[in-house]
C-alpha cells in the first residue's frame, strides 16, 4: 500500500500553500494556458524570454496541491535556463513521475525529486506535469494546451 506521506511531502504542501512566482506578468513575452479537463485544473504560465534564456517566469490559476506545487517549483527550477535545458528537465521530471527516473535523476532534478511519490498514483501524473506541459507550449509559441 502506498503511503499518503510519499505523495504529500512537506515541501509539496508548503509550495501548494505559498506558491512562488504566483502572479500575472503583463510584460511577459509569451504565455500559454494549460487545462486539465478531467479535474478542472487551469494554469497560465508567463515567460519573459531574452535571447535563448528564460529571464522571468510566473504562473496564475487554480488546481490541486500537486499541480500547484509542481508549477511553483518548476518556475524556480527553470528560471535562467535555456529552452533546451528546460525541455530536458521536463523530460527527466516526466520520467520521475511515471516511475522511470534517469539514473542520475537526483543530480538533474534536485528538489524536484520530492515528486517521486507521484509515480505511485498514476491518476495524478497529469496534475504534476500540467504546468510543465504549459511551459512547453509557451516555449513553442502555442497559446493553449490540455493534458488530454
Amino acid at each position: 500500500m502506498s503511503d499518503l506521506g510519499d505523495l504529500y511531502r512537506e515541501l509539496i504542501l508548503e509550495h501548494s500553500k505559498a506558491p512562488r512566482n504566483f502572479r500575472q506578468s503583463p510584460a511577459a513575452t509569451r504565455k500559454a494556458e494549460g487545462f486539465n479537463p478531467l479535474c478542472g485544473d487551469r494554469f497560465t504560465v508567463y515567460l519573459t524570454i531574452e535571447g535563448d534564456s528564460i529571464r522571468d517566469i510566473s504562473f496564475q490559476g487554480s488546481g490541486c496541491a500537486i499541480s500547484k506545487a509542481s508549477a511553483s517549483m518548476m518556475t524556480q527550477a527553470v528560471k535562467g535556463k535555456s529552452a533546451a535545458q528546460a525541455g530536458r528537465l521536463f523530460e527527466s521530471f516526466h520520467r520521475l513521475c511515471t516511475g522511470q527516473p534517469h539514473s542520475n535523476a537526483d543530480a538533474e532534478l534536485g528538489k524536484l525529486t520530492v515528486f517521486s511519490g507521484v509515480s505511485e498514483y498514476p491518476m495524478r501524473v497529469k496534475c504534476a506535469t500540467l504546468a510543465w506541459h504549459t511551459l512547453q507550449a509557451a516555449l513553442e509559441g502555442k497559446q493553449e494546451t490540455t493534458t488530454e
Partner: protein
Amino acid sequence: MSVAAKSVSGAGFDVERARADFPILQQKVHGKPLVYLDNAATAQKPRAVIEAISRYYEGTNSNVHRGVHYLSEQATNEYEEVRRTAQKFLNAADPREIIFVRGTTEGINLVAQSFGRSNVQAGDEILITGMEHHSNIVPWQIVSDERAATLRAAPINDAGELDLEAFSKMIGPKTKLVAVTHVSNALGTVNPVRRMVEIAHSFQVPVLVDGAQAAPHMKVDVQALGCDFYTFSGHKVYGPTGIGVLYGRAALLEKMPPYQGGGDMILSVTFEKTVYNRLPYKFEAGTPHIAGVIGLGAALDYVNRLGLEQIGAHESELLRYATDTLSAIPGLRIIGTARDKASVLSFTIEDIHPHDIGTILDQQGVAIRTGHHCSQPVMQHFGVEATARASFGLYNTKEEVDTLVRAIERAREVFE
C-alpha cells in the same frame, strides 16, 4: 447494539442483507474495506443482474425479432418481457412507448435529433435549467445551432433550487421544448417536475425529463408527472452499462422521424422507398444490446423486490445523517442545499482541492467522485472549479458515512 441492528433503517429495510447481494462490495481497496460512495456515476451490480447476463449468454443467446428458431424466439420473448417491466417501472400507458437506448445520453440525443429537427425552426427556443448535466445541454446546443434557434437556461438560486417563477416567464410562444433533469447529479436537487410540466403544457410545450439520477432513488410515474419524454440509464439503477430507456408519449413518437436507419426499424425497403416499422421498433435500428436489456430487466426486478420507497427512505436517512455530520467539519461547505434532495452530497473543504480530497479518501478505501461532474455551468454558478461528491446507493450504511467523515478528517490532518 449489533451492527446489523444499527443498520436496519427506514421501513425495516435490511441493508446488510442487500449488501450481501453485491459481490464487488466484499473487497478491500488499498487494504481497507471498500466504501463505495460514487453511485451517481454508476451503481454496483447485484448478483441477480450478473447471473441473468451469464444465463442469457450461456443458454439463450440469439438475435431478436429475426429467427424462426427456438433460441431466437426465447431471446425475443425475454427482450420484450423487459419492455413490459420497464413500462411498469415508469408506469407508462403502453409498452410501445418504451424504447431501448444506450443510456440517458442517447435518449436525449434521440429526442434532440428526431423531435428537435422536425419541430424546431429558426428563431425558436429550447428551455433547459441551470443545473443540467452536459448531456442535457450539448444535444440541444447542436440542434439550436443547426436550426438557428436559441437555447435558454432557467436560473437556479444559491441553494441550488430552480427559480420556478423565472422558469415560467421564460416559456412563451417561441418555446418548442423544455428539457429538465428530475434530480441534479451535481447538487442532488429534486426538481418540481410535475409543476414544471403543468406550466409548460399550459403553453402547449412538451417536456423531456432526464431521469438518470431519479430512477435509482424514487418511484417514477410518467403519467402522474405528465411529461412527454423520460429517460434513464440502466447502469445507475444497478443494471449493466450500455443500456437505458427512453419513454415517449405514443402520440409524439408516431409523428417523429426515425433517429437511425438500419435493420429492425423498417417494414420494407426498396431503393425508392422505405416503410418504417411501427413503434417502438422505428427507433431501435440494428441489433440491440440484448444482454444489456436482459440485465436491465433483472436490475429493475431487483429494485422492485426491495421496493423503491424503502430504498428511497433508507437513502434519505443516510443523506440526512451525512449532511448533519459533514456540516460539523470545520471549513466544509455543502454545495446544494435544496429543501428536496436525493442521494447526492457535494462539498468543498477550505484550502483542500477536491482532487486531493479524492486521492486521500481513496487511500482509505472510500470511493467518491471529484471534479465538475459534467456540470460546468453549475460549478460556475457556485464559483468553484470542482467539488467532492459522495452519492449514496441502497447498500450504503451509516457506518460508511462515519468512515467517510474519518477519511475527511485525515485529509484535514495532511493539509494542516
